[in-house]
């Protein structure tokens, strides 16, 4: 078996979830690497979009900002933030990648603040940015995040971006588009999805060498388990070579993982 780092495994696992011919709104960092890797392997017809207006670039390097010129370098279209968001709202965009300081069992995300006083938060984070919009409007939300109890929380200090809110039917009741919502959460320990009925997070595969109890220990709420619980497929040499040599040769992302 090939040798790989946790971040390499996370990126490879995420890239394999992107269908060929799909559209995906990505941010900077690992999600962008996963989308680029997918384009170079299983999904050559994947269309990348960036929330500031970049559509279908031939990415020369990793963008530093989701609005920088790399996001539309040799792109198919350089348009507006509204055009990209409305393409999501219209129902054309299959995937998006989101992150946050906290995530709960329904895939709700917090990227706004820590503390219980809104007016004077303990820690102020940037806020939604485009996350709430993308999490509301794209069909499937993917999360790539480190796995620890601080992040995987029973109760969020602030729901910035909707997952399944408080459970089955809640998105639809709130007016969010039916059939949309969190899809997979990819961490350094496991890949999780969401149970069809309860909309609760469930472990689908454990990364090689990781046990379920280790995952549960690092999670602040009770995880469900999908049967049969699998082992996350290890990336093969070819994929790793493309990731290392073509996607992130300067190790901007791989160097951090």
């Amino acid at each position, binding site marked *: 078996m090939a040798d790989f780092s946790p971040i390499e495994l996370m990126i490879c696992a995420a890239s394999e979830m992107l269908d060929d011919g799909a559209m995906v709104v990505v941010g*900077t*960092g690992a999600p962008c690497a996963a989308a680029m890797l997918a384009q170079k392997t299983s999904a050559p017809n994947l269309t990348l979009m960036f*929330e*500031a*207006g*970049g559509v279908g670039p031939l990415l*020369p*390097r990793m963008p*530093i*900002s*989701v*609005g*920088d*010129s790399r*996001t*539309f370098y040799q792109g198919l279209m*350089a*348009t*507006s*933030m*509204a055009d990209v*968001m409305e393409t999501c*709202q219209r129902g054309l965009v299959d995937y998006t990648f989101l992150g946050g300081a906290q995530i709960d069992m329904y895939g*709700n995300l917090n990227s*706004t603040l820590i503390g219980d006083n*809104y*007016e*004077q*938060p*303990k*820690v*102020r*984070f*940037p*806020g*939604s*940015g*485009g*996350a*709430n*919009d993308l999490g*509301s*409007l794209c069909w499937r939300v993917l999360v790539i995040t480190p796995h620890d109890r601080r992040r995987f929380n029973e109760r969020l200090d*602030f*729901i*910035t*971006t*909707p997952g399944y*809110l408080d459970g089955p039917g*809640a*998105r639809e*009741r*709130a*007016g*969010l*588009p039916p059939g949309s919502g969190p899809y997979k959460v990819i961490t350094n320990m496991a890949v999780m999805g969401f149970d069809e009925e309860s909309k609760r997070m469930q472990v689908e595969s454990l990364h090689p060498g990781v046990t379920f109890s280790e995952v549960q220990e690092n999670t602040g709420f009770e995880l469900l388990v999908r049967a049969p619980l699998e082992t996350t497929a290890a990336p093969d040499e070819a994929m790793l070579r493309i990731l290392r040599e073509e996607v992130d040769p300067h190790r901007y992302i791989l160097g951090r993982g």
Partner: protein
Amino acid sequence: MTKSNVLQEGVGPLLTSVDCDAARAYFRTQPKEMVDKVMPVSEAVSRFVVDGDYLASGGFGGDRIATAVLHEIVRQKKQHLGIAGHTTTHDFQILCSGNLTGRGQLLDRVDAAYIVGLEARGLSPHARRVMQSGDVRVCEWSNYTLALRFQAAAMGVPYLPARSMLGTDTFKRSAAKQISCPFTGAPLAAIPALWPDVAVIHVHASDEFGNCRIRGTSVADWHVARAAKKVIITCEQLISNAEIRSDPTSTTIPFFCVDAVCLVPGGSFPGNMPYEYFSDEMHLQAWLQAETDATAHATFLEKYLFGTKDFSEYLEICGGEDRISELRKEELIV
């Protein structure tokens, strides 16, 4: 009059009026002659930015931003401004230099979609201090809904519907309302219009009257320029009106939206200017680093911002044309 349709409403403060008749009355009286609007940044800021004004910053935080105007607002010690933070990053950080630095309070209210962060570069310690101080009133939004607020204003209507923000604390801390669709009955978010007092936008080219071209993504600027009551343009290049007229399809902002045109080559530095120069990541890191320590921060701001008389002096101590040349190479690398 009935407002019976409102199912739920956010508790966030509405920081600007949603009265489209008042906005119409304002726009009616504004001069619309094609006159020469070229002036120095210092004049544009002293004439068109008034204490208490609500600002919108064009571009995308560190991409195509009107750095020169933002610096000048801080230098002129404008007070009690509001700001629309739809992915504001370095622009927000610049404005925060006027808070908690012994120069009164530059920012006192923020519509927040994305603030205090610089995307992949990390968070601004000073912007966080400002936002954690309790001195600044905040209303939450998302990037799209904040863009939609400008769009509503540009369209001249008091609100627009969206399917975003619903069900979250972002909604609860916003000033949006949940309504039901008059056609389908389905719940929708009603996003109120936002007419900023002043917008500051950096563009690739403008003529002397303010007919502007932008290359690359327009982010929300098409609507921001139309929504704002006063618009200050900075441009990489001044072009002739004949050049504008040679390709009217390329005009992004028409002259009748614009109040001041300032020629500022390199004007998005240290931000990225598409097709011109990439962002100066070293300078941005130095700024973030300086903010981790109060003394270092004061020294940094004195050197780069308060101690410089204008943007060109700032650019000079950042490396001037040599540095811009390096960033031009960076921009054009495949």
